[in-house]
């Protein structure tokens, strides 16, 4: 399987009469996109807005972030199971509108979280302060129940992202617009992969997906991850949106769809592939709530690693508490099977940094990278413009979300900031002991 990513660098978003890209500027036909999304009658209202890095804008509560992509070549479309049919993806050519993201927002459930500040101290803690953002404010209709409301908003984000990319497809195919970069990723059949680079260590990636239930779910080819047995997936399939996020909790360490499309661990393993290691495969597994599922999935995932005959694995987690047990099980089962591991996680060490960071541990977990303490407090200054649904006073008052000061500034844990302590190691944040 070979995949080419044709990336067009987007530096500015504008509303205009037709949707298309020229010289890095993406113009969006607001009415057309709003009407397109409103075709789903479960949505009572849709409004669009834009936000650029550096502006005094706060977006809240953000449910998901999606990078606009569509296929340039034949075969199944991106986001299989939602936009595309359920046939395999991960091959051929894919168009990527790079440097921008679609952010969905709208009030689903009371706990308000998922802040993106485009400037100020909060901007440092979210990758989405560096992208031009098309914000889709969604209002599910009243009688739609929570389950349906969640899936309506999730699918609306994917539709908007796919719409934007596919409106640029003709221009690229007709060479009216050239991709700024083209990058090729090869994922050969296992027989070939195993013999390539005989003197380099064979490495796999165990990719844990949040799967605990409503608002804590992930979908693979449209299948709810809590229903899968661990399985192999090609790294190129993840680039075509095979994995999408239905997880809204916690904002800091949930993997948005954007991060699944641009998995940093896969990026790093590819970067060293053929030079320092032989990247032979990705194993996806879940983080179910029952202990029977945890034992089954961790043993199954490690068995797949043994079947691949890998020497070492990176294991990344999603979430805190319940998933710590899966992370630890995956770790010690792999190490006892002779497979060396490095764990990527985040910490909940309390606001004073002195509580126990993880809710589980094992002596085999001697190699750990963490994306920082999610309980660290930060003061966010007031922003001139807020897009989405500003938190209700009673929610703020209860200190459940953070504390609002008279001058309009907010004191919150970075846990409420989108992607702040992403456990795939997407950002440079980390922690150390003083």
């Amino acid at each position: 399987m070979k995949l080419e990513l044709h990336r067009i660098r987007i530096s500015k978003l504008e509303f205009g009469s037709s949707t298309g890209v020229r010289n890095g500027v993406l113009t969006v036909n607001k009415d057309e996109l709003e009407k397109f999304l409103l075709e789903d009658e479960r949505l009572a209202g849709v409004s669009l807005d834009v936000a650029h890095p550096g502006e005094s804008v706060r977006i809240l509560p953000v449910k998901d972030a999606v990078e606009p992509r569509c296929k340039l070549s034949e075969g199944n479309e991106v986001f299989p199971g939602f936009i595309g049919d359920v046939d395999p993806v991960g091959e051929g050519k894919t168009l990527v509108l790079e440097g921008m993201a679609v952010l969905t927002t709208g009030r689903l459930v009371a706990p308000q979280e998922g802040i993106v500040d485009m400037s100020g101290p909060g901007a440092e803690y979210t990758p989405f302060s560096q992208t031009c953002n098309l914000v889709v404010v969604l209002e599910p209709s009243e009688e739609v129940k929570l389950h349906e409301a969640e899936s309506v908003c999730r699918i609306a984000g994917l539709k908007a992202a796919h719409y934007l990319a596919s409106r640029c497809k003709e221009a690229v195919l007709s060479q009216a617009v050239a991709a700024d970069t083209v990058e090729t990723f090869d994922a050969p059949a296992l027989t070939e992969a195993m013999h390539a680079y005989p003197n380099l260590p064979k490495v796999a990636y165990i990719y844990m997906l949040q799967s605990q239930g409503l608002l804590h779910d992930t979908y693979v080819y449209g299948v709810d991850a809590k229903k899968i047995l661990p399985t192999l997936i090609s790294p190129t399939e993840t680039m075509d949106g095979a994995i999408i996020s239905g997880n809204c909790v916690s904002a800091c360490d949930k993997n948005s769809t954007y991060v699944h499309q641009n998995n940093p661990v896969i990026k790093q393993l590819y970067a060293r592939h053929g030079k320092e290691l032989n990247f032979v495969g990705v194993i996806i597994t879940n983080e179910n709530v029952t202990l029977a599922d945890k034992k089954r999935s961790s043993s199954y995932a490690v068995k797949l690693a043994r079947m691949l005959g890998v020497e070492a694995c990176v294991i990344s987690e999603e979430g805190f508490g319940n998933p710590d047990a899966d992370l630890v099980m995956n770790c010690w089962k792999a190490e006892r099977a002779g497979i060396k591991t490095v764990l990527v996680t985040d910490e909940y060490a309390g606001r004073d940094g002195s509580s126990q960071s993880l809710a589980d541990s094992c002596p085999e977990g001697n190699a750990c990278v963490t994306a920082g303490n999610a309980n660290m407090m930060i003061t966010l200054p007031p922003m001139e413009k807020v897009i989405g649904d500003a938190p209700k006073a009673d929610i703020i008052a209860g200190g459940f979300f953070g504390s609002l000061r008279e001058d309009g500034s907010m004191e919150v844990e970075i846990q409420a900031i989108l992607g702040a302590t992403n456990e795939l190691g997407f950002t440079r944040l980390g922690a150390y002991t003083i």
Partner: protein
Amino acid sequence: MAYRVVHYINQFFAGIGGEDKADHELEVREGVVGPGLALANALKGEAEIVATIICGDNFAAMHSEQVCAAVENACKQYQADLLLAGPAFNAGRYGTACGMVSSFVQKNVGIPAVTAMYKENPGVDIYKKDLYIVETGDSARGMGTAVPAMAKLALALLKGEQPSKEHGYIERGVRVNTFYDTCGAERAVTMLLKKIKGEPFTTEYPMPVFDRVEPRPAVKDMKSATIALVTSGGIVPKGNPDHIAASSAQNYGEYSLSGINDLTADKHQTAHGGYDQTYANQDADRVLPVDVLRDLEKEGVIGKLHEMWYATVGNGTSVANARRFGQEIGQKLKDAQVQAVILTST
């Protein structure tokens, strides 16, 4: 313009007297007193000690609110930019008082504080989470190294610098966020390659690991052996006199068994927060078998039940604390010529 520093010392280092003067009431004097002189020199004019607070160790222990309030007022009155306290070396009450006033001032006056003491001073575990404690020797002979280290750390804090390991403070066990040069994923793959090649690497989050000890040889003559009882099940005299915490214990207790043949509900209890306390509070022998060992002592099966028992609470106790409790208790039992120990846990 030099920073303004207030210095807290006890009656001994102020030259007023030793234990006999431990009730010396708190007083504030302009300028430097005792070790303050060496500290002032070490601050090389970048900061000056504008006032010294002198307080007897007993007085500080008995009147903590009053002392803290007085220290707070002194810092405000002299517009202090930082509080220096000690060095206290291995003096327990002095170290605890230094920690108390330092963390109070940091919280209530909003200025940094630096103190210094020996790593086994009880003040360390109570206050290391709140403030920087320079590690010193266990006696005043260590003054020569303690003073420059305190001054260096104080100047770093005054200039808003983030202290590093070189400043020689005792690890506080507090996790602090930072932006590394590379993203977490890159750091992970780099670490994995080192682990594969067997090269050294530093984990970013150390998981607790327990070391192994050599088994001791068997007791040869049980009939004349002194056996001691130690427990992590939290059995303490009624009222928990040493206030051993129900979880994440910071200390252990040492209690006498003389005249006690049986633990009873009115005199003994459990302080342990990790299990249903009903049964241990009804009869603490269910955790610490004093009644049976007294019988065995009377019947001559064992030589003697050691007159002291040791107890802490093993519930989320940090590995570092547990190791320190074990070393200290072990040393005391060795000094008391105890041949063997029965360790009970819940």
